[in-house]
């Protein structure tokens, strides 16, 4: 037991001194913001399974902060030939893009953006540079409206200790045909990395963004923390995709919030395939009338992997629409928890909100927990949720086998078909193929 | 097979009492029932909450969170809401020290 005088989560590595070190050479407003975030962090207890949001993930077992050190943040030279092979392979798969950004461990090592877009005011740059080059925008949006430190213990920790990240800005009316592609690599075992993503899409702009994180397996626990803020102004259309393919030994934690203005569309896809423990918090806030959010999720667990997705759909404005579909397959002794809530706030009349979680148990030792919640404070709404847990559909299996497929292959196809429904709802160049291939690899293992 | 770990001395846990301890990476409840030592995993089988907040009553351990009871010798669940046993570990006394093989 921790002594009462100790502050939960403060260690020899994670402390105010580390926060102050991060603030060196940063604008004053940012240093103050980090300091404030740290105060918030110290004031919040470490979540336990007694908290509804953490009921199925026991941090006492899942994360050992004491054993971690802070990851290095000095950028490596921008030389693709020196990139780890897996990172290069991941990038080679990427199709046409409007721009690229590469992060290795805690720092951005490469950024490019098509010139025609840059000349129209599109900004894609490391967050560490953006705090100087676009300080007005970053100061306005960074850890303020979307993921402020007050949000949670991890949000506070990230806001205090982030080392680098992505700043993407799309001016009013600018529409990007191809996605922005971000690739991250985590290489340093036993380290903790904190990164942030800030996307601001001005009114009537359009952008899609694909963020992929990969690594090899680790023999000591490695912690990757991410905070994601996506802001779609009136009439903007934004697609945010996160692909998590970390190696075993990783503890992945991502706190995401999307803010959709009037008539904005803000769709998300979270694909969780890697890491030993993966926790994603996603809060979609429908702030403007006519706003819309499709929220997709896909997870596939093997060995003793543990996935925890905690989502919320906040309908603040009337006439807004959201539709969530999270599907997962669980093999071996893996387990997944899904907790989702639709909140229709007072006055948010004519809301349409849906939420579906489907789980496939592929093994005797797998486990799925599902908590689809509704809190409805307006009467003129259409809301529903559904949740299922079951095994492979025998009929489909037998049909395929009667067509001459061996059982193993038939099973693979049924699982792919089950998860594929999610991907078919967000057709994005290269993403479907990439995820399908990753699932196939896992199915074969 | 896990290793034997020294968790306490016999004097640390008098008859009729229990102690919440660590045995390697596992958290355990060490119970002294009239001089016989028993070790249970410190985790109720009903919901994943610590048993050690509860109480040892004779040969039964009461989980205070929802009233489940377990036989400290076998780990067997004795009443609702628990339906599954809790893990029990081997215990040995060597020269006045209590060793547990957990995990």
């Amino acid at each position, binding site marked *: 037991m921790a002594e009462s005088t100790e502050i939960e989560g403060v260690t020899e590595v994670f402390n105010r001194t580390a926060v102050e070190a991060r603030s060196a050479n940063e604008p004053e407003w940012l240093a103050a913001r980090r300091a404030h975030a740290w105060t918030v962090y110290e004031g919040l207890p470490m979540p336990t399974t007694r908290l*509804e949001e953490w009921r199925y993930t026991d941090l006492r077992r899942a994360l050992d902060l004491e054993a971690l050190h802070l990851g290095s943040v000095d950028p490596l030279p921008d030389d693709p030939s020196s990139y780890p092979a897996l990172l290069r392979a991941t990038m080679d798969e990427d199709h046409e893009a409007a721009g690229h950004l590469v992060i290795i461990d805690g720092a951005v090592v490469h950024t490019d953006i098509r010139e025609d877009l840059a000349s129209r005011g599109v900004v894609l740059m490391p967050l560490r540079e953006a705090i100087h080059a676009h300080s007005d925008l970053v100061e306005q949006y960074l850890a303020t409206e979307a993921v402020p430190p007050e949000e949670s213990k991890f949000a506070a920790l990230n806001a205090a200790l982030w080392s680098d990240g992505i700043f993407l800005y799309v001016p009013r009316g600018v529409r990007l045909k191809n996605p922005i592609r971000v690739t991250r690599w985590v290489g340093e075992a036993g380290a903790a990395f904190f990164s942030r993503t800030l996307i601001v899409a001005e009114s009537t702009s359009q952008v899609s963004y694909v963020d992929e994180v990969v690594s090899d397996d680790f023999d000591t626990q490695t912690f990757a923390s991410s905070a994601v803020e996506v802001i779609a102004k009136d009439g903007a259309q934004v697609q945010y995709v996160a692909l998590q393919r970390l190696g075993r030994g990783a503890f992945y934690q991502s706190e995401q919030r999307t803010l959709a203005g009037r008539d904005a569309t803000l769709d998300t896809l979270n694909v969780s395939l890697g890491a030993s423990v993966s926790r994603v918090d996603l809060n979609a806030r429908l702030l403007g009338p006519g706003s819309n959010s499709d929220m997709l999720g896909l997870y596939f667990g093997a060995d003793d992997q543990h996935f925890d997705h905690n989502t919320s759909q906040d309908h603040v404005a009337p006439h807004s629409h959201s539709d969530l579909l999270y599907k997962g397959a669980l093999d071996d002794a893996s387990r997944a928890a899904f907790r989702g809530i639709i909140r229709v706030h007072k006055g948010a009349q004519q809301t349409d909100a849906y939420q579906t979680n489907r789980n496939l148990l592929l093994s005797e*030792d797998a486990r799925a927990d*599902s908590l689809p*919640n509704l809190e409805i404070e307006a009467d003129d709404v259409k809301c529903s949720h559904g*949740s299922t847990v*079951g*095994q492979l559909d025998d009929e489909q299996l037998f049909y395929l086998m009667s067509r001459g497929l061996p059982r193993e292959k038939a099973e693979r196809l049924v699982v792919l078909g089950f998860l594929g429904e999610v991907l078919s709802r967000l057709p994005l160049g290269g993403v479907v193929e990439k995820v399908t291939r990753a699932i196939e690899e896992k199915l074969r293992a | 097979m896990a290793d034997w770990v020294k968790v306490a001395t016999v004097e640390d846990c008098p008859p009729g009492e229990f102690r919440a301890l660590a045995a390697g990476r596992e958290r355990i409840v060490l119970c002294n029932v009239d001089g016989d030592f028993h070790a249970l995993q410190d985790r109720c089988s009903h919901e994943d909450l610590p048993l050690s907040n509860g109480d040892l009553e004779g040969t039964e351990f009461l989980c205070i969170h*929802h009233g489940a009871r377990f036989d400290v010798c076998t780990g067997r669940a004795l009443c*609702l809401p628990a*339906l599954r046993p809790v893990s029990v570990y081997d215990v040995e006394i060597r020269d006045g020290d209590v060793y547990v093989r957990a995990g």
Partner: protein
Amino acid sequence: MPQNEVIQGLDLDEYKYGFVDEEQHVFRTQPGLSEEVVRQISAQKDEPEWMLEFRLKALKIYESKPMPEWGGDLSTLEETLDEIYFYVRPQDQMERSWDDVPENIKNTFEKLGIPEAEQKVLAGVGAQYESEMVYHSLKKEWEDKGVIFDSIEDGLKNHPELFRKYFGTIIPSADNKFSAMNSAVWSGGSFVYIPKGVELETPLQAYFRVNQERMGQFERTLIIADEGSRAHYIEGCTAPTYSTESFHSGVIEIVVNKGAHFRYTTIQNWSTNMYNLVTQRALVHERATMEWLDGNLGSKLTMKYPSCYLVGEGAHGNILSIAYSGDGQHQDTGGKVVHAAPHTTSSIVSKSISKGTGRSSYRGLCKVYDGAVGAKSNVECDALLINETSRTDTYPYIEIEEKRSNIGHEATVSKVGDEQLFYLMSRGMSEEEAMALIVRGFIEPIAKLLPLEYAVELNRLIELEMEGSVG
């Protein structure tokens, strides 16, 4: 808009059971809960020493447990409890004939239609007034077949072994704060034993009435349905409406043995100043069936989630929960099914109506343990909202450890449809009639499982709730 007028009209809640009798008691404890109060209750009952120890231990557990922070608003409950009478004894002894029950108490139950129903449709009746059962009777033909239907106190006195084997094992004192409280101060309730193979053709009923202001009622019921038996138990509850708050916290433990079929129906119509915090749980063995029909219409706040622990192969659990929340009411209800054996099946259907500032919450659990091969469970929640100030929530917990199982949960929230209203009105109905019809259709599933007289009564009740002076 005419519809607004209807909705305005519907806000007029009428409670026809709010009459008050002259206060009369032979003993009552000081307000509030203390060790002294627990000892006095125990002494009043002249019970064995082990029960006093059980109570005192439960009191300690109660004191050690924090107030729940989920569910309804319990922020002022602690103050309310300090003012509550935990035990009020209305008469010296329980009677077997209505003629021996004191006049004013008898009148109360006559107004509630109990003796009449007993004649017509019931196998037996128990009537609790304040803290004690004042009347208990079972038709002779069932008594002859070995059926036991008695007050819980007489169960302890006359069947000590059977009682002690099960009491507090289905719902231990420490299960939750209010089961601990009930375990400390329980008084009244039924003890029921249905022998092997006996099938009761008509229901048993227990009726709970609170008359005293600032009263706390803590009935405790233990039911054992032995192998292959079949029975239906109905509980009803009402109280006068006071400006102060009252409190009811029951614990209902049921064992359904191999192949037995037991149905427990609640028509809860407490006045809207009542906290109603109840724990109900059934242990269901091989091929047995447990059905909970839970109708919650009254109370200020109800927190109640009847549960089925399906521990024998092929056991079946069925929970039907109907909630009506009017102005200022919060029904936090639902059900729990725990599958711990192969081929167990369950179904939860929850229907709620929220009107005015009413709030209905569904809270439920479906748990499938590893090894419950072939388990199937289906949960459906349907919430109807009548006004823009109404609220509904759905909080299901689905925990699945067994691959070879099939689990589904669905919930929908909707407004009383304009189309439905319009259609009915085009057939010549007034808006008010149309609204009442829609709502009646909504509670139909529970009504049709009740004896006819009760179904009619339930419908009348809903109509009263819905009725209002339009324009």
